[in-house]
C-alpha cells in the first residue's frame, strides 16, 4: 500500500464524515443546561466558601489571642494583686498592733483599699499618733514635756519657742552639737519628720498597688484593638474587659454569630 493510496483512503473517509450529521438525542441540551445551571450556583456558592474562610481567620485570630492572653497573664502573675495584698497584710497588721494598742475599735479595719479621703485621714491620724514617739528625742534638752500627743501644728511653735530659749546665742549645746555632727539636724529642728517619711513610704506603696491594678486594662484595650482590626463592625463578636480584681473577661456576642448564620442562609 503506497502513500498515495493511503492519502486517498483518508480523504475518502474524511469527505464521507464531513457531511455526517447523526441525530442528537433530544434530552441532551436539557442535561447540558442543567449542568450549566448547576455550574452557576457553584460560582455563587463559591462566595460562601470564601466567607467560610472568615471563621478560619477567626479561629486563627482567637488562637493567637488566647496564646497572647496566656502569655500576658503568666507574665503579669508574679506582680499580681495577690502578691501586693499579701505584702500589705504583712506590714499593716504589726504596725497597727504596735501603733494603736489603746484604740481597739480601729484595729480590725480591713486591708481593702479605703476611699482616698479615708486613707488620708488614717495617714494623718497615724502621723499624729506617731508624733508621740519622736517627741522624747526633741525633749532631750530637758524642757517641759506634754504627755498627750499633739498635732504637728501645735508642736512646732512649741519647739520653736524651746529653740529660741535654749539657743539665743550662736553657741550650740554639746548634745545639740553631737546631733548635728551625726547629721540629725532634722530631728533637732523638726521632730515629726521621721514618722512622716515612714508614712509616705507606706503611702507610695499603697499608691503603687493601685497603679499596678490598672495594668490589665491596658491588655484588654490592646486585645480589643486587635479584635477591632479584624472585625470592623460596630458590634464586635468578641470583646475584652477587666473587672475590679484585674481579671480579664471575654464577652462573646452570640446574637451576632446567629445573625451571621442567618445571613449565610
Amino acid at each position, binding site marked *: *500500500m503506497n502513500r498515495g*493510496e*493511503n492519502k*486517498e*483512503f*483518508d480523504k*475518502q*473517509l*474524511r469527505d*464521507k*464524515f464531513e*457531511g*455526517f*450529521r*447523526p*441525530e*442528537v*438525542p433530544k434530552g*441532551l*441540551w436539557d*442535561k*447540558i*443546561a442543567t*449542568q*450549566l445551571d448547576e*455550574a*452557576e450556583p457553584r460560582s455563587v456558592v463559591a462566595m460562601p466558601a470564601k466567607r467560610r474562610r472568615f471563621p478560619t481567620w477567626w479561629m486563627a485570630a482567637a488562637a493567637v489571642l488566647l496564646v497572647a492572653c496566656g502569655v500576658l497573664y503568666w507574665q503579669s502573675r508574679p506582680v499580681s494583686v495577690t502578691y501586693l495584698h499579701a505584702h500589705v497584710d504583712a506590714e499593716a497588721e504589726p504596725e497597727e498592733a504596735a501603733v494603736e494598742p489603746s484604740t481597739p475599735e480601729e484595729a480590725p479595719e480591713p486591708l481593702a483599699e479605703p476611699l482616698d479621703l479615708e486613707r488620708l485621714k488614717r495617714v494623718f491620724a497615724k502621723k499624729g499618733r506617731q508624733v508621740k514617739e519622736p517627741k522624747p528625742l526633741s525633749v532631750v534638752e530637758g524642757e517641759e514635756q506634754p504627755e498627750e500627743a499633739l498635732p504637728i501644728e501645735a508642736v512646732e511653735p512649741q519647739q520653736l519657742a524651746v529653740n529660741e530659749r535654749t539657743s539665743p546665742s550662736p553657741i550650740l549645746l554639746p548634745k545639740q552639737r553631737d546631733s548635728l555632727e551625726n547629721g540629725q539636724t532634722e530631728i533637732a529642728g523638726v521632730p515629726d519628720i521621721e514618722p512622716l517619711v515612714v508614712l509616705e513610704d507606706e503611702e507610695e506603696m499603697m499608691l503603687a498597688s493601685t497603679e499596678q491594678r490598672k495594668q490589665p486594662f491596658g491588655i484588654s484595650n490592646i486585645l480589643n484593638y486587635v479584635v477591632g482590626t479584624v472585625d470592623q463592625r460596630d458590634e464586635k463578636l468578641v470583646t475584652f474587659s477587666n473587672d475590679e480584681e484585674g481579671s480579664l473577661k471575654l464577652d462573646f456576642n452570640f446574637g451576632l454569630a446567629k445573625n451571621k448564620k442567618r445571613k449565610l442562609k
Partner: protein
Amino acid sequence: MEQTVTIESLYEGCKVGNRQAQEKLYHAMASKMLGVCLRYASSTFEAEDVLQTGFIKVFRHIDSYRGAGSFEGWIRRIMVNTAIETYRKNQRGGLSVEMEEVYEDTQQTFSMDALECEDLLRIIQTLPDGYRMVFNMYALEGFSHKEIAEALQISEGASKSQLSRARTWLKEKLKQLEGGNYESR
C-alpha cells in the same frame, strides 16, 4: 458560510452567558460535533457523554477563544480534546491479538459512496481504542505523529505503526462489508 457567520455571531452572546445564545449554538453544532465524537468513542453512549462534556467546556471556557481560528474549529478541537481525555481516563489495555493477525499486504482501494456513514462508523468503532484514536487524529483531523505521540503519551513510532495497522484493519473490514463492491487497481 452563512452558518459560520451565525455561529460567530452567537459567540458574543455565549461569552456573556446568554442561555438562548448557548442553546442556539448547541443546536447549530451538536449534530456535526456528535459525528466527530462518534468516530473517537467506542460507543454511542460514550460519544454523547463526550459531546455533553465538550459543550460544557465550550460554554465555561469560551473566554479562552482568542479568535485565532474559526469558532467552529475551536469547538471541534475542544470535542477532540475531550474525547482524548476520555480515552486516557478509560484506557482499556493494549492492543488486541486480532490486530496482529491482520494481513497487511492489501492492495485494494475502496469507493465508499455506497456505504453509509453509520456503517463506516461501526467499523471504526470496532478498532481497538488506541488504533482508533491514532487513525482519527491523523487521517481525519490532520494531527502530526508528534502531536499524536504527545497527546496519547506514546512514541512517534508507535503512532505511525498503529496508523498503518488501523488502515489495514479498516480496509479489510470494508472489503468484507462491501463484498464485491470494490475495485482493484
